[in-house]
C-alpha cells in the first residue's frame, strides 16, 4: 500500500513536471519523423512525396536492405541509450528526491509508519518506474513505426527498454546520492554528469589498455588500469550490447576489417595503424561479456545506493 501510494504520487509529480511532457513530446516527434520516411524498393520517399531519393541501401524486400534498416533502428536506439536520452531522463528524475526532502514536506512523511530505508528504496523505485514509462512510450512508438511503415518488425529493438533503464540507473544512483547529500536537483544533475564522464574515461582507458596493441609499451600500467575500469558502471558497453542483440555488425566483421592488408601497407603509415588499433578496440568492446559487465556495474550501483540510503537514514531534517 505504501509503495503504491509513493508510486502514484510519483506519477502525479511527473505529470506536473514540464520535462516529462518534453520527453513524451520528443518521443512523438521522433516517431512522427520516422513515419515521414518511407522505403520503397526503388526510392526513399520523404514527407509523403515532398522529396524523393533513389533507394540504394534500404530495400525492405532484400536481406541487405533490411539489414540497412536495422542499422537505422540501432541508431535510433543509440538516441535513447546514448547521452541524449540518458541525460534527459536523469534531468527528469533528478527532482524526485530533493522535492521529497524539502523542509516542511519531509517531516510529514518521516512521521508516518514507514522506515527510512524503505522509504528511500520505494521512492527510488517509483522514480525508476517513471523513467521506464517514458522509455516504453519512446521505444513503443518508434518500434511500431518501424514495423508498420518500414515493414521491419525488429523485436530485439524492444530490449532498448531494459537497456535504457540499465543505462539510466548507472547514472541515476549518483544523482540520488548527490541529491540526498545536497537536496539540490541542479547539483545532482551536474555532478552525475561529471561522474558519467569519469565512468566513461575509466571505460575508455580500460578498453584501450585491453585491446590497443600500441599501448603494449605501458605493460605495467595495463593490469591496474584494466582492473580499475571494472569498478565503475560500464556505461560504454551498453550500446554495444544493443547493437549485438539487434543483429548489427559483428566483432568478427570488424576484426576481419582490421586484418585487411590496406591498413598494413606502408603507404598508409601511422594512419593505417591507428585505424587498425581503433578497430581492434571496437571489436574488443563488441565482444565484452554482458553478464560480468552488467553484474559488476550493478554492484557499484548498489554500493552507491546503499551509501545514499545510509546518508538518508542518519540525517536530521
Amino acid at each position, binding site marked *: 500500500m505504501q509503495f503504491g501510494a509513493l508510486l*502514484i504520487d510519483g506519477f*502525479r509529480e511527473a505529470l506536473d513536471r514540464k520535462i516529462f511532457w518534453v520527453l513524451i513530446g520528443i518521443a512523438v516527434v521522433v516517431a512522427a519523423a520516422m513515419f515521414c520516411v518511407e522505403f520503397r524498393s526503388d526510392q526513399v520517399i520523404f514527407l509523403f512525396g515532398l522529396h524523393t531519393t533513389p533507394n540504394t541501401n534500404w530495400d525492405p524486400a532484400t536481406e541487405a536492405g533490411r539489414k540497412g534498416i536495422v542499422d537505422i533502428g540501432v541508431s535510433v536506439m543509440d538516441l535513447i541509450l546514448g547521452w541524449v536520452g540518458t541525460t534527459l531522463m536523469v534531468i527528469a528524475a533528478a527532482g524526485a528526491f530533493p522535492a521529497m526532502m524539502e523542509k516542511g514536506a519531509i517531516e510529514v512523511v518521516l512521521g508516518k509508519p514507514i522506515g527510512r530505508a524503505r522509504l528511500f528504496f520505494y521512492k527510488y523505485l517509483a522514480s525508476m518506474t517513471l523513467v521506464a514509462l517514458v522509455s516504453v512510450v519512446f521505444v513503443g512508438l518508434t518500434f511500431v513505426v518501424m514495423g508498420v511503415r518500414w515493414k521491419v518488425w525488429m523485436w530485439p529493438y524492444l530490449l532498448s527498454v531494459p537497456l535504457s533503464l540499465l543505462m539510466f540507473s548507472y547514472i541515476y544512483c549518483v544523482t540520488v546520492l548527490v541529491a540526498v547529500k545536497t537536496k539540490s536537483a541542479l547539483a545532482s544533475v551536474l555532478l552525475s554528469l561529471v561522474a558519467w564522464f569519469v565512468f566513461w574515461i575509466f571505460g575508455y582507458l580500460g578498453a584501450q589498455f585491453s585491446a590497443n596493441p600500441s599501448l603494449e609499451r605501458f605493460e605495467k600500467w595495463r593490469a591496474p588500469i584494466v582492473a580499475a575500469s571494472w569498478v565503475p558502471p560500464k556505461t560504454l558497453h551498453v550500446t554495444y550490447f544493443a547493437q549485438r542483440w539487434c543483429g548489427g555488425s559483428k566483432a568478427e566483421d570488424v576484426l576481419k576489417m582490421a586484418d585487411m592488408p590496406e591498413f598494413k601497407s606502408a603507404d598508409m603509415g601511422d594512419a593505417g595503424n591507428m585505424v587498425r588499433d581503433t578497430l581492434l578496440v571496437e571489436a574488443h568492446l563488441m565482444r565484452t561479456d554482458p553478464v560480468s559487465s552488467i553484474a559488476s556495474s550493478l554492484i557499484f550501483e548498489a554500493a552507491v545506493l546503499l551509501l545514499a540510503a545510509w546518508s538518508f537514514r542518519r540525517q536530521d531534517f
Partner: protein
Amino acid sequence: MTMLHTTELTNWAVDLIDVHKTYRRKVKALRGVHVQVGRGEVFGLLGPNGAGKSTLVKIMMTVVHPDRALGTVLGRPIGHRGKLGRIGYLPENHRYPGYLRGEQLLDFYGALSKVPRVQRRKNAAYWLERVGMKDWAGTRIREYSKGMMQRLGLAQALMNDPELLVLDEPTDGVDPVGRRDIRLLLTELKGQGKTILLNSHLLSEIELVCDRVAIMKEGLVARQGPLRDLTERVLGYRVRLGGERAANAARIGSMSEKLAAMGARIEDHVVQLASQEIGRVNELIDLLRAGGLLIESVEPRRLSLEEVFVEVLGAGSHVGAARPT
C-alpha cells in the same frame, strides 16, 4: 546503565526522559528535557523562538535523531513503527506538494499511515468537511492560502484516527474564526479521549485549551505543570468600591497616608494591593470600612499565563538555543 523497561501500562501518553540533542553546528537545542503528557490530556509546549520545541516534537516523530532520549511514546520506545501509525503529526511550516489536490493529499498520507482504502475515502471526506475545506477538495494545493494549508494539514494529521495528535503551531496563519474552529475541534477530540500535544506562541489560546503546559527555555523545561497550578498564585487583590465617586474621593484623600503605608494604590474606583497575604487584605478592608467606604467586590488578581511566561524567562533576550559562553 540499566534500561528502564516500559510497557503499554504507562499512564503517560508521552513520557520523554532526558532528551539531548546537539545539532551538527554545535547548537545545543535540547539539554536534558523531561516532558510528561497524560493520556487524554491537552498539553501545551511553550517557549521563545529557538527554545527547542520543534526539535523535541521532531524527535518524537523520528524526523530528528536525538543524541540521547529515554522514555516512551504511547507506551513504546520513541520511533516505534506501529505506534507512529497511531500518531497524527502536523509539522510547523509544512509544505505539501503543490501538484496534489486536497483529497489526493489526504489519500496519499493516509496510505502511508496504512489506512485501508475504503476507510481513507471515508475519513478524507469527513475531515475535509470538519476543517471547512470541503469545497476545496478538488483544488490543487498550490492554489491554497496559508490558512487553508493549515486546515488541510490538520485534516492530514487526523486521517489515521490517531490516539495522539502532535501539532506544531496549528493555528499559525489561520484567521480568527478558523482559530476558534480549531480550538473547538481540539476540545472535541479531547472529549473523544485523544491526547494532544500542542506547540504554540498564542498564550491566550493555550490558556483556553490546555490542561497542562511546559515552558521551555534554551533547551530545557523551565516549568511544567497543570495550567491551573501555574496561574494559581495570587499576585494581589483588587478592591472595588461602591457608592458615589466624589464622596469616595474625599474619604480616600483623608486616609491616603495610611493606604500608602499599606502599599495600596488607588485607581479610580479600585484599590489595588500588591500583597499576597490575605491578612493584609482584611486590614485594608477594615481600614476602608472604618473610613466609611462601601466595598462592592474583592478579587484576587492571579497570574496570567503570559505573566508566568515572562517570569519564567526572566529579563533579556532568549531567542535561540543556549550559546556556549
